[in-house]
């Protein structure tokens, strides 16, 4: 099937308006006869469910958690971008659009990104009306911060819990519709397959995670809003339950999976402390504004520090390697996320990692304590301050800026970052890849939509900070409600979709058999055994930097591991009870397929762009080197085993932005 992005004709600034002017609408009386399933209740799924219900559709929402409020959007810290230009600093729809396309290393679709920037301002109005307590200035107006290296202050925030507040806003909108009976909420339910009738998505098979019951749910359209697949790495900043299963099942039923290899690895996370580690914690990258990153210059110091016979503070300036300042004198510690992450890996791989696992570098605030301290001494007119006084004054300033992060660090690592440098290491954070969608956010399966992080999105090969929340809410509140109406206008006479069809029968049978197999297998290894092994392959060979040989090995290893899994996995308990191991087994089985496609996609993409760095394709300075022939979206068609997947290309045209090289000199 040829890919048709269905981007409307006309100037980019008119496309969305023109589109809305000409789509089919469903009259209110008919909406009552139409059912929509939404899988996932994060910012995208929650906002979509609420809006569709409000419009009059009958919505069924599904979440694997015990409440919609727990979806992982809740963990987003920094903020949400919107082109409001409240600060009068030159922001505009075009500038937000431009920054997003450039930040994505010119691998996203212009028309979608422009629409995102266009509706961004509306999101803030909407959320304020819902009672989201955004930060305010003393005059009572909304406050903004600058974020992620852009030149304007367009980020709205609610302390360090912006994701939480926006999600609770969407959750409250859902609650209003649940109370009216327009949303039927299925908590602790997991979608295990999509049902396709006459070529259209007409329902799902879901498992009640409490009772184990397999349920059939029909609808006129199915919306996948199940988030990203960062947990394919086992360790990531994602929630423990975050998974690819909903998206992957749809992929296996005909939806193309786009750019699986585009992953964002965030540089400032708390390092692993041991093999038992279950997840990674992120700290805002704003820390790099005041911290200097280094490792010891000499191996004997590295070893002494690991043994505990030496402290990092005992090393002189000459014994330290401030590798970012050394390699990137112009940008220093403020190089972009991907560059900072790769450089930390390079030093750790060379053996200079500073903790027991060998995967950590220092983020040192000593210089900032001194700089701020001296400044404060001047301000307070303190003559000849002692070193201790300077440090004390400087620490007070740093505490005011990052106190909560320092406290969080101390809780987890049990070291006082005011006295000894922090240790950091990059961690998997967000996946730009996902289900391929057209301008309508519809996958290649008619009637099946994908929104939020679950689609291949508007972020190209790299996402800018504070843009994930923006996209999730834009898709759910303002884009999907229009586009899905255009599709559903053909369904006003269809009537309720029966779940007693052969298609539902077959899908349920497939799901049940797979579960039975997993339960009956009684192998020798736990599910986590496989998940950890997969994670290690992904991290070592499909992580921050990739090469041909590593990717080829990864494909073989994942394929072998998948075979091993199906022979030897051990799932305790039964299928008819609360069984977390069983739920996890299904998710890991899908990750074992996705992982291989991921490596394949990375192998085929013989260029470097954003989060995808191929060692063979770098500039002399070690920067990502894009190649014109790869200015396309890779969309994979399922054909059985991942090795048989067929590549389709959506060429990307840039008519409103000049494609340039990114440089950090």
């Amino acid at each position, binding site marked *: 099937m040829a890919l048709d992005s269905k981007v409307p004709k006309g100037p980019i600034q008119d496309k969305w308006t023109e589109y809305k002017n000409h789509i089919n609408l469903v009259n209110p009386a008919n909406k009552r006869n139409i059912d929509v399933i939404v899988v996932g209740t994060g910012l995208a799924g929650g*906002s979509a469910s*609420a809006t569709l219900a409000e419009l009059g559709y009958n919505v069924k929402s599904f979440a694997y*958690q*015990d*409440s919609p*409020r*727990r979806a*992982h959007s*809740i*963990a987003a810290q920094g903020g949400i971008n919107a082109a409001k230009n409240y600060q009068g600093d030159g922001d505009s729809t075009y500038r937000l659009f431009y920054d997003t396309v450039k930040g994505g290393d010119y691998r996203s679709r212009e028309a979608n990104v422009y629409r995102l920037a266009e509706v961004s301002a*509306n999101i803030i*109005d*909407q*959320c*304020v*009306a*819902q*009672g989201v*307590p*955004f*930060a*305010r200035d003393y005059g*009572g*107006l*909304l406050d903004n911060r600058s974020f992620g290296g852009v030149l304007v202050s367009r980020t709205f925030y*609610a*302390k360090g819990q912006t994701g*939480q*507040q926006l999600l609770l806003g969407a*959750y*409250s909108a859902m*609650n*209003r519709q649940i*109370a009216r009976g327009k949303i039927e*909420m299925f*908590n602790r339910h997991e979608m295990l397959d999509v049902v396709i009738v006459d070529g259209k998505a007409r329902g799902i098979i879901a498992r009640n995670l409490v009772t184990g019951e397999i349920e059939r749910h029909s609808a006129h359209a199915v919306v996948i809003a199940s988030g990203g697949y960062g947990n394919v790495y086992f360790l990531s*900043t994602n*929630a*423990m*339950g975050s998974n690819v299963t909903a998206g992957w099942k749809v992929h296996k039923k005909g939806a193309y999976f786009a750019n699986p290899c585009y992953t964002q690895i965030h540089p400032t996370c708390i390092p692993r*402390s*041991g093999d*038992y*580690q*279950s*997840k990674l914690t992120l700290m805002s990258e704003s820390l790099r504004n005041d911290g200097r990153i280094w490792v010891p210059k000499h191996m004997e110091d590295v070893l002494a520090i690991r043994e505990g016979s030496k402290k990092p503070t005992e090393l002189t300036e000459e014994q330290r390697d401030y590798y970012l300042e050394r390699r990137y004198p112009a940008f220093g510690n403020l190089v972009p996320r991907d560059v900072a992450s790769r450089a930390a890996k390079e030093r750790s791989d060379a053996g200079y990692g500073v903790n027991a696992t060998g995967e950590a570098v220092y983020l040192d605030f000593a210089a900032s304590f001194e700089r701020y301290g001296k400044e404060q001494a001047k301000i307070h007119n303190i003559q000849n301050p002692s070193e201790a006084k300077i440090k004390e004054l400087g620490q007070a300033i740093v505490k005011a800026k990052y106190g909560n992060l320092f406290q969080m660090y101390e*809780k*987890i*690592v*049990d070291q006082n970052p005011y006295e000894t440098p922090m240790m950091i290491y990059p961690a998997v954070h967000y996946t730009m890849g996902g289900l391929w969608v057209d301008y309508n956010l519809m996958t290649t399966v008619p009637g099946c939509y994908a929104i939020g992080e679950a689609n291949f999105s508007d972020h190209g090969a790299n996402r800018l900070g504070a843009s994930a929340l923006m996209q999730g809410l834009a898709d759910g*509140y*303002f884009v999907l409600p229009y586009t899905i109406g255009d599709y559903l206008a053909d369904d006003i006479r269809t009537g309720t979709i029966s779940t007693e069809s052969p298609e539902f029968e077959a899908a349920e049978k497939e799901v049940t058999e797979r579960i039975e197999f997993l339960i009956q297998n009684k192998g020798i290894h*736990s599910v*986590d055994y496989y998940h950890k092994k997969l994670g290690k392959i992904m991290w070592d060979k499909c992580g921050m930097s990739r090469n041909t040989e590593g990717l080829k090995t990864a494909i073989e290893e994942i394929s072998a591991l998948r075979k091993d899994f199906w022979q030897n996995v*051990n799932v*305790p*308990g039964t299928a008819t*009870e*609360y069984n977390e*191991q069983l739920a996890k087994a299904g998710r890991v089985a899908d990750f074992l397929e996705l992982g291989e496609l991921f490596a394949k996609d990375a192998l085929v993409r013989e260029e470097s762009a954003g989060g995808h760095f191929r060692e063979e394709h770098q500039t002399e300075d070690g920067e990502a080197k894009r190649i014109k022939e790869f200015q396309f979206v890779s969309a994979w068609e399922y054909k059985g085993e991942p090795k048989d997947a067929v590549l389709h290309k959506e060429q990307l045209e840039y008519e409103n932005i000049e494609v340039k090289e990114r440089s950090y000199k």
Partner: protein
Amino acid sequence: MDLTLKIWRQVDAKDKGKMVDYKVTEISGSMSFLEMMDVLNEQLVNAGDEPVAFDHDCREGICGMCSMYINGEAHGPDRGVTTCQLHMRMFKDGDTITIEPWRAAAFPVIKDLVVNRSAFDRIQHAGGYISVNTSGNTQDANATLISKKAADTAMDAATCIGCGACVATCKNSSAMLFVGAKVSQYALLPQGQVEAADRVRNMVAQMDLEGFGNCTNTGACEVECPKGISLDNIARMNRELMKASI
């Protein structure tokens, strides 16, 4: 460190349930409490036994899913953290740790340490929202000035993660802190004024219907709340309820 765990095991809602002892060894102080539970479960699975069911998801203290009653305290001995942020360095070698589910009639046990907190959702359905359509056709976000103090205090209330530690801690199994936090958030903001009276009446009525107890001002909930939600919110809710009743 080596530990003895006394864990509540209950097959399902109908089961009577009992405490069962387990041993775990070589636990590192850097592990989170849930990672220690992962070690136990891996051990149980490899021995062919049933792992202990417990709720967890984000493991960074914000989703509100984890919910263990550890040595008689909701989320364990540390302050200002959820169970997932509790580290094993809070314990010492040879300790016996008692782990129970949230105990409240309104939170029935699903299995082992997993409880059903849907009652919280139903209280929110009763009024935990502002009736504004999501069409985006609202007024400009800066059209209404909101004082920084009101916004910050509303934010402090809104920071509640809905974990239920307040209910589990309270000798009356009261949900007043949870409900008070939501009522307060809207009561402090101009957007919440229109429906203020109905909201507080309906949410409190639903709270009572769900079988949560009353508040006797012992303040344990505030102490155990991982997000430090203040008792002021209960006072504010009571005030709102009074206002709505006259």
